[in-house]
């Protein structure tokens, strides 16, 4: 036993020496993705952010990722990164929250960044984006573009982020078209092109002439295009999947944030924090507004500008819940970030109930 441990020590020493012998030790940055990097949606955009880090600090950083990591079995994958010398680790799905916190306790010198979560620690920061701002804009576009007054919404999992997105979309649509109705189908997965397609088809069969989605693959958009209906891109600019039938995309741009946080670690200034921003900071961007009349395009652009300027917001008070109660206004003239992050009710006018 003693001999083994001496050998291990010698080995560790050799590793340390070889590390020191290198001109400069590279900072290793690791990523955990919930889907494949080729989903062209959520995980793809996070991977674009990873590539931006490599481009921003040539020769100073090395990045790795593990893709398609199931949320319930992610602790091992996260620890795998921590124990292989990664000093900054981004875990990019809500379900990685508890495992990230557990691994962070074991590796106090490693910095963790958890996307869309709400629990932090000394070495665990959280970050998210106000995707609902983009959904408010596409809601307005859909409200103006629909002829059947019925819009199909493919939802992934009824967590608050998705609920808030549905509410923002509906409020946007209703503000320009009081007769609009939305129909929601839950896929219960983030990435499953087959089920996403089926959901989109079912919605169109029920009369929806515009499809929007909160799932990660381009499948719903493609299904809409196949039937000559309009739809929106999700997470990345999905123009290439349906050039004639895409209206715009809500684009998640994680690159500036990832570069900024990597720089903070390189400069020794990293601290745990919580960041929740959107269009104004460029974390959420809109794709080109296409395949729509000029006045609709102008409406979309004006709404985008107003949100950036802070004069418009999907959740300006009063916000009335489905059951008729008025939600308390905790963020001045709008709902507070915390209220949006924990949203678990539909707003008045949406039919159907949240799966419970």
């Amino acid at each position, binding site marked *: 036993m003693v001999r083994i441990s001496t050998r291990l020590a010698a080995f560790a020493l050799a590793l340390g020496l070889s590390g020191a012998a290198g001109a400069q030790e590279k900072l290793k940055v690791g990523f955990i993705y919930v889907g494949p990097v080729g989903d062209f949606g959520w995980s793809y955009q996070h991977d674009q952010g990873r590539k931006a880090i490599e481009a921003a600090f040539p020769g100073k950083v090395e990045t790795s990722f593990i893709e398609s990591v199931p949320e319930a079995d992610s602790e091992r994958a996260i*620890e795998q990164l921590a124990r292989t010398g990664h000093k900054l680790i981004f875990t990019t799905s809500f379900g990685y929250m508890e495992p990230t916190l557990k691994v962070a306790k074991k590796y106090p010198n490693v910095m963790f960044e958890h996307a869309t979560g709400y629990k932090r620690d000394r070495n665990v920061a959280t970050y998210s984006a106000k995707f609902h701002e983009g959904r408010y804009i596409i809601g307005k576009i859909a409200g103006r573009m629909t002829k059947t007054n019925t819009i199909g919404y493919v939802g992934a999992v009824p967590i608050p982020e998705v609920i808030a997105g549905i509410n923002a979309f509906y409020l946007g649509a209703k503000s320009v078209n009081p007769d609009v109705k939305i129909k929601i189908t839950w896929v219960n997965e983030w990435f499953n092109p087959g089920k996403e397609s089926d959901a989109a088809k079912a919605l169109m069969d029920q009369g929806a002439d515009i499809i929007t989605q909160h799932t990660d693959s381009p499948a719903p958009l493609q299904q809409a295009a196949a039937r000559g209906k309009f739809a929106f891109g999700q997470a990345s600019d999905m123009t290439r999947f349906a050039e004639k039938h895409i209206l715009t995309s809500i684009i998640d741009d994680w690159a500036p944030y990832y570069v900024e946080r990597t720089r903070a670690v390189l400069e020794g200034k990293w601290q745990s924090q919580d960041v929740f921003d959107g269009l104004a900071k460029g974390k959420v961007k809109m794709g080109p507004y296409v395949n729509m009349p000029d006045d609709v395009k102008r409406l979309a652009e004006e709404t985008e500008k107003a949100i950036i300027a802070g004069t418009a917001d999907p959740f300006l008070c009063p916000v009335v819940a489905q059951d008729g109660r008025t939600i308390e206004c905790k963020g001045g003239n709008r709902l507070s970030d915390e209220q949006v992050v924990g*949203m678990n009710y539909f707003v008045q006018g949406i039919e159907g109930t949240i799966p419970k």
Partner: protein
Amino acid sequence: MTPLFVLTPRPFVSPLRRVLTPVCALAAALAIGGVIVALLGRSPAAAFRVFLVEPLTDPWAAQEVLLKATPLVLIATGLLFCFRASRWNIGAEGQFLVGGLCGGGIAILTHGMTGAWILPAMMLAGACGGLAYAALPALLRVRFGISEILTSLMLVYVADLLLDYLVRGPWRDPKGFNFPQSVAFSDAALLHPLLEGGRLHAGMILALAAALAAALVFRRTLFGFAIAASGEAPRAANFAGFNEGRITILVFLISGALAGLAGVIEVAGQVGQLRPGFGQGLGFTAIIVAFLGRLSPLGAVLAALVIAVLLIGAESAQVSLKLPLDLARFFMGLLLICILLGESLERYRIRFRRAEKERPA
């Protein structure tokens, strides 16, 4: 058209051939995989080391392999009872989920309490839950002759939705911002690691004990013989006085109880809370494990280890070699095909047809 070759059964399979078959299958898979890795411009030797050697030699990775294999061994061991009797329980995933739910329910009800009885109570509840859930398809088959393949599979989706309902409704963490998950279990409801710094817990011991017990039952007991007889020659088994219905129910109960136990162990040892998707398809993977292990308990243990090694190797390969996950999945599929092909070639010989005149049949 005459086929290019025909398969004729070998009258006798030598023990040497039985040993060499899996070895050759592995060698073939490695050779093909090595060529692909080389074509991608990476070193096949490094890939071999990361994929198959390090998960077994690195102490941390080895613990993770055992941890990953634990539920697979438990579920597959239970499935052996069914499959050996030619009863097709495809719904181990559902029994696993219900087991986890029952055990997890106790953890949630006793949240904040301490006591050494909590964990055993959870295990018992989990095993009973899985058992009861497996009784449904068994009873439906015995009573009404309904195919257990369909019912057991369909009940997986029911269990999945039940889990979904509970973690979004009554069992949702009240302080969890309405996210669909239960509270994190208290210490008394968790299976703690055996070794400092690792995650391996006592579940592995239970799994090995179950596999050993199954081996004894199959070899040494009348019940084991009844299972085999009923599976291979149901009419003969009937004549011998073994009650077909009773066997169906018993093998399903055993299978369900072990799957349920695996569910609690996964929830209490690995996940630490109830949340959608904690099944991870382990109940389905265990079917592969059972067949890969040729329906023997020892084989199932080995097969579970092989699958676990490949899964963990796939994660290391992404980090240290930057190999895509798809390649790892490709290799897993390749290995399975080679093993299945090897099994066929073990029992059958290939006869190529020459251009001889075909006699009229």
